[in-house]
């Protein structure tokens, strides 16, 4: 299974565009916000936590279809399904590889992009922590959507339509974790629920996504 993780990460790095693309997309979203609503630092600092979360979420969405689509097209998925690896493990490893190459870089970049949006003092750490806790859920739910749409020729748009509603709880609690700190409130509840949602997602997605893959492979 570690071999699968290593292979997927090597492929993302060698393919070009995978890893840097989401970061570039994230930067562009952050850059467009002042263009759209004006550059007053007081306005920006209020919306900064939400913009960072939505930006990271959308950037994460970009590379979801790669999780299974390429392996489906070149036959690897057939071979993996008939290999000794449990398909649930394959899903978990591929989602983890997606997180390591997308979610984690976005999490690391978010505090720096926070400067551009005048994120309030004290919210930097929580931006980082909330994304660290929340982005695994984004990758895993994305893997579920990717597993459902893997057999479709033009599944990209549908994938977004299926996955985005599933992101709602993660987005709400993730953004609240940061917003509440920025407002000077206690955010422990929001953060703990965010972590709980993330863990819950990690627990159920391998099974439901493997179920969807088996249906799509037959």
């Amino acid at each position: 299974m570690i071999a699968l993780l290593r292979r997927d990460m090597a492929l993302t790095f060698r393919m070009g565009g995978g890893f840097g693309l989401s970061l570039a997309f994230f930067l562009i979203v952050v850059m467009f916000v002042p263009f759209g609503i004006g550059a007053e630092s007081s306005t920006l600092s209020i919306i900064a936590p939400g913009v960072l979360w939505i930006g990271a979420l959308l950037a994460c969405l970009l590379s979801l279809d790669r999780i299974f689509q390429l392996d489906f097209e070149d036959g690897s998925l057939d071979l993996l399904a008939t290999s000794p690896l449990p398909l649930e493990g394959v899903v978990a490893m591929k989602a983890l590889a997606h997180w390591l190459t997308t979610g984690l870089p976005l999490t690391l970049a978010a505090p720096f992009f926070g400067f551009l949006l005048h994120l309030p003092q004290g919210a930097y750490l929580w931006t980082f922590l909330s994304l660290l806790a929340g982005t695994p859920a984004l990758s895993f739910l994305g893997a579920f959507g990717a597993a459902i749409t893997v057999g479709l020729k033009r599944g990209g748009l549908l994938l977004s339509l299926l996955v985005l509603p599933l992101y709602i709880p993660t987005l709400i609690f993730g953004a609240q974790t940061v917003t509440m700190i920025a407002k000077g409130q206690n955010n422990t509840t929001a953060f703990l629920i965010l972590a709980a949602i993330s863990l819950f997602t990690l627990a159920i997605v391998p099974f439901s996504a493997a179920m969807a893959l088996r249906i799509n492979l037959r």
Partner: protein
Amino acid sequence: MLLTVDNLACRRGDLHVLTGLSLGLAAGRVLVLRGPNGSGKTTLLRTLAGLTPPVGGTITADPEAITYSGHADGLKAQLSVAENLEFWASVFGTLGIDAALAAFDLLGLRDRQAQNLSAGQKRRLGLARLLVSGRKIWLLDEPTVSLDAQNVQVFAGVIKSHLMTGGGAIIATHIDLGLADTDVLDISPFRAKSTDHNNPFLDEALA
């Protein structure tokens, strides 16, 4: 018997393709599947591999003994020949890819990226995966596509030594592999007829 199939019915999508098919594969034997295009050879192999659930009948085999090779080789263009094969070796928990590379005359191409291989070289690499899988039952769907005559001979040699070590293979192919003693099964008689369907939507009372 490595694999026994009894009264199997399989389907592709909504379509029943084969019905009432029985076959057996003993250790050291090759079974060649014949039949015109669209007769269900691929569907049968995918059903035997456990990818498609059968509609009826039974398949008796150790699923941990089966490996399947379809039309696509499952190669990654950005990985080298060795990396591609090493990945499958670790998935199947076997060691050493050199023997498999040597068997298909790929040692000289070890570090070449798969995207720079010719179609025949890719196919050979895909077939080399069978050796690193370490499994006894090979289910092969048109394995000789894009192989030249010389490499078909190489492939036949690999099959022979696989049989010698107690393995077996079911091969869907149109060409003669030049193996001395093969069983041949023409699957066209097992083609499902419209009356075989157990489809509840075809009930005349619905009309």
